[in-house]
């Protein structure tokens, strides 16, 4: 029952939101629902912390430290985004950007989105995981095209077409995995259960498994935003409402990456870690490289943040690809850090959009004067996301890079040195772009003052996480991360 309740909470919230006609009530239901989810998830993680893993419904659900971390990110960022949505959507509604009755569907789809992402994390069946990842695409298409104007429709169309094609390729990977397992497991009901597959993965047919993992990394990689399949990502992130962009960047990408990691573990056991690690490193490095020029020349701040997500997902893939114990530890810590820091950035971006009504960085001036709180948080978030000490992303990047350097392999050393050069370039791109916006003289016609208190509350909530991890990783988190490291290294 423990895991099923986790899925039921967002589902009930979604249905409640759609049936209550007044959005003044439904928005609070939405926050209450996601807060309950957050609390319940903490309770669940304590259980996992004690038991290491949990199975339910005849092995249909399976939660271990790896799924727990992803689910935790979903609930933390989900709660922050629900809180932020109130402020953001109220302001947008006030400007009459969309009809009021559409807001009901916004909250409905929002919670369905959270439901599908949680389903990705807790299901044990790789086929159902595929269905859930495809369902994340379907539930968010209307959110990407929420304002229903030309650019939004374009972004939504690109999003659904590219992601669905990618995920269809991943289905082929799932089919091939199933095929290669059939000779070993046979024709039984839970033939696609990850735990059952992992138990016998060393006897799979290696050629088919190789092909399967290739399709998986291309397919789910499309959804995770790994270059060169990332082209939907900047469009969707920039056109969706800001809370949704935050969920996309912080959580959705991690969910797809979670899918890749599950197959990575199986393929490592079947083929040895080299094959899948090399693929992860290659896609990771390509993503980091591809994002740099776009970050340097970007004019639209939401697209800037979107490209930075590609870079960070690339970095996480690299960390997983290095394959050392601490680099995996660091990479998983990085997923959490990136999720909170990037969501924070998107919230700042949302506030800027509400105030200045533009996404052009050139036309935004003097944030620190007009919106002091947002300005300060923006500075912290930018420092955090570019990996400046002492902030949280510096911590996780440092762990990964240090482990890579200590591994001693020349190949990895070259990768890592290149990576550091790229990180410096990205830092330059950010500082150059963002600091002009923050510290210049404000134009006269802008009213000073923050947009509203809900948005600030959501930002402060995430800021707490950023600051805590910067200085201190709690022991329960450390334990979970090292458990994840063991799961991925399969020791």
């Amino acid at each position, binding site marked *: 029952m423990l895991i099923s309740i986790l899925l039921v909470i967002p589902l009930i919230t979604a249905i409640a939101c759609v049936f209550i006609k007044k959005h003044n009530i439904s928005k609070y239901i939405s926050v209450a629902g996601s807060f309950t989810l957050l609390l319940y998830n903490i309770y669940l993680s304590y259980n996992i912390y004690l038991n290491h893993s949990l199975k339910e419904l005849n092995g249909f659900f399976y939660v271990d430290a790896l799924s727990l971390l992803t689910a935790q990110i979903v609930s933390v960022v989900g709660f922050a985004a629900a809180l932020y949505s109130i402020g953001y959507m109220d302001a947008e509604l006030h400007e009459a950007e969309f009809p009021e009755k559409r807001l009901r569907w916004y909250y409905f789809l929002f919670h369905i989105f959270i439901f599908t992402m949680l389903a990705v994390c807790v299901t044990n069946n790789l086929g159902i995981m595929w*269905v859930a990842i495809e369902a994340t695409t*379907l539930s968010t298409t209307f959110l990407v095209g929420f304002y229903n104007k*030309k650019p939004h*429709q374009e972004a939504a169309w690109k999003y659904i077409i590219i992601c669905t094609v990618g995920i269809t390729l991943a289905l082929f990977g799932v089919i091939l995995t199933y095929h290669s397992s059939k000779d070993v497991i046979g024709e039984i009901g839970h033939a696609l259960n990850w735990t059952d597959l992992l138990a016998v993965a060393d006897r799979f047919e290696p050629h088919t498994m190789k092909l399967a993992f290739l399709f998986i990394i291309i397919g789910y990689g499309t959804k995770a935003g790994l270059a060169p399949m990332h082209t939907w990502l900047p469009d969707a992130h920039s056109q969706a409402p800001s809370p949704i962009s935050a969920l996309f960047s912080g959580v959705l990408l991690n969910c797809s990456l979670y899918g890749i990691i599950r197959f990575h573990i199986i393929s490592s056991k079947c083929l040895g870690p080299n094959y899948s690690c090399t693929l992860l490193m290659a896609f990771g490095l390509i993503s980091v490289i591809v994002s740099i020029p776009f970050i340097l020349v970007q004019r639209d701040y939401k697209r800037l943040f979107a490209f930075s997500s590609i870079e960070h997902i690339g970095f996480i893939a690299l960390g997983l690809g290095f394959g050392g114990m601490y680099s995996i530890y660091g990479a998983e810590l990085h997923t959490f850090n990136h999720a909170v820091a990037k969501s924070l950035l998107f919230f700042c971006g949302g506030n800027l959009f509400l105030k200045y009504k533009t996404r052009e960085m050139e036309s935004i001036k003097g944030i620190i004067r007009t919106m002091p709180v947002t300005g300060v948080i923006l500075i912290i978030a930018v420092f955090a996301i570019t990996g400046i000490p002492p902030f949280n992303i510096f911590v996780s990047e440092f762990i990964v890079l240090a482990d890579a350097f200590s591994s001693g392999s020349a190949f990895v050393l070259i990768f890592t040195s290149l990576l550091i050069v790229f990180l410096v370039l990205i830092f330059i791109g950010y500082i150059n772009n963002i600091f002009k916006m923050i510290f210049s003289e404000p134009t006269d016609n802008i009213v000073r003052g923050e947009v509203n208190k809900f948005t600030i509350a959501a930002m402060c909530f995430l800021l707490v996480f950023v600051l805590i991890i910067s200085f201190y990783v709690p022991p329960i988190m450390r334990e979970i991360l090292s458990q994840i490291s063991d799961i991925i290294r399969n020791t």
Partner: protein
Amino acid sequence: MKQHIIVNSQTIDVLAVMMLMATVLHISTSRLTTCVWAYAIRSFILACASGLIAYYSGIYHIFITTGITLVIKVVIIPGFLFYIIKKVGIKKEVESYLSFTLSLLCSCGVILIAYYATEPIIRFESTFMRHCLPVSIAITLVGFFTMITRKKAITQILGLLAMEDGLFFAALSTSYGMPLIVELGVFFDILVSVIIMGIYVYRIKETFETTDTGFLRELRE
């Protein structure tokens, strides 16, 4: 718990080739409605093949997937696409970035690649049903190819459906379908994604006054 089922049927091979022919019809026709018909025909043949495989292998849950295939892929989705074409008033001609002859030749090449790529795998298979894997990969690749080269939004949907058909057939012929619950989920996803895409075709037509996706070029660096 091991169970080895071997289906020996030349009929299924012939059905596979007929699906390939329906795919060739999909590429070679210049009428949108014929494309949808080609999809319906291919899905129907797919349902026949799946019914035969269920019959020969004795795995009865495949009968359920056969039934769902018939309802969703042969009736609902083509019907919905016809409805969209009529409602949106899309021009009946298929438009492509490549000339027809060139795209025919390209897809012929793609099909050959599928055959050559699977040759080492199928060499060890039993004599019959050796056409199934190359044909399913060929359909998938051709679907991908039409998605890239065709301009209209609705032809991209059709390409996607072709990919899905190919993969479905691959699963069916290599491992007698996936577990039933997964199949149900996949069907549900396909149906919902087609409906959402259909809605977007309608909206894009409303705002852009065309369904040519070449006009979707506002978002770029």
